[in-house]
């Protein structure tokens, strides 16, 4: 991890794309503008963070904007990690996909499946993703189950304390 000062240096270099920096328990996080995510990732790759270890989603309900996408980058040479975080509102959540190649900016192939998972579970749409389909839930599934306002589903578990309340079949 870059230390707190190193993180500030990176943030300064990235300029207005960075909204905030968080240094918590030796974990450096850049909060960035959603529209500039590709630029930020490309700049960090130039600094040596060339390996995307993980891409995942978060639901910060009831905070707004609700949804978050986190990119964990790793510098294999210095064994140094940095997180990039962006927040998008729940309605029409849309972020540039990290997958496709752009002129002067190689895509991150590993993000393909992980963006599909974030789309499946949180409903964040990734612009220009080559194949944005559900990955874990059935294709005709409705809703995004990892959102916090999604009903947990499942069946009521019968214990002795609620056994009497259990609906019985008509005799």
């Amino acid at each position: 991890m870059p230390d707190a000062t190193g993180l500030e240096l990176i943030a300064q270099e990235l300029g207005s794309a960075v909204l905030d920096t968080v240094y918590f328990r030796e974990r450096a996080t850049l909060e960035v503008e959603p529209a500039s995510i590709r630029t930020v990732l490309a700049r960090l790759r130039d600094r040596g963070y060339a390996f995307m270890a993980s891409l995942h989603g978060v639901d910060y309900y009831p905070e707004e904007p609700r949804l978050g996408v986190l990119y964990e980058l790793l510098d294999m040479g210095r064994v140094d990690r940095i997180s990039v975080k962006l927040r998008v509102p729940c309605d029409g959540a849309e972020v540039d996909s990290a997958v496709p190649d752009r002129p002067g900016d190689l895509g991150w192939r590993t993000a393909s499946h992980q963006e599909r998972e974030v789309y499946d579970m949180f409903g964040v749409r990734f612009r220009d993703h080559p194949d944005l389909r559900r990955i874990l839930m059935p294709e005709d599934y409705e809703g995004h189950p990892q959102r916090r306002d999604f009903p947990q589903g499942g069946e009521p578990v019968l214990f002795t304390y609620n056994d009497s309340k259990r609906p019985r079949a008509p005799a």
Partner: protein
Amino acid sequence: MALRRARAAVGRASVADPATGPAGEGLGARVDPEALRVRELGASQLLRGGELEGPAQPAHLEGADLERHVEERVMTTTLEKAVAWARSNSFFPATFGLACCAIEMMSIVAARTDVARFGYEAFRASPRQADLLILSGRVSIKMAPIVRRIYDQMLEPKWAISMGACCSSMGVFNNYALVPADKFMPVDVHVPGCPPRPEALMHGVLKLRKMVLDDPDMSWRERYGAVGTEEVLPGA
């Protein structure tokens, strides 16, 4: 023992019979049909437990003695019971593991709880050769149609065991992702546990064995009142 005595009897009969000549004649020698018949009778008598000579020979028994002799040696039953006995002692489970319970399912074939003692060790790789589906693990709603298709591909008579908490009541994964097995297919035996020990699964299989012995000829549609729900109607 009886077999050895029978072999000796065959040898003795051939020596004693002048028509066949001395014993040890070359292969392809002509054998007198009469003498062969005598040798066969002697051998089969010994196999039945009778003596070659003397009054105890079954061939010499008559009347009540013969009746008793047959009654002592023959067991009668109905065809259904015989078939159920054979079926219940030779389940062919499908090689089909879903999750962590599958590890326990595999270990019932191993030395400690040797399922081969009861004749269920032949796990078939194709559902068309199997007659027992052990649902060993959690069934997600994406997997459920596949499991159902595998069950449909099995030939009657067929049985299903739901192993572990997940596919019976969704267990610790009681959420949007899973579906209990009873919702999409008939299950004969539920084995509780998370995961059940191999002994528990064994107990479930033996329960199923008892069930098959008791109700020999019921298909699953009869067992669960599902007659008339066939996907392909007769004549279609």
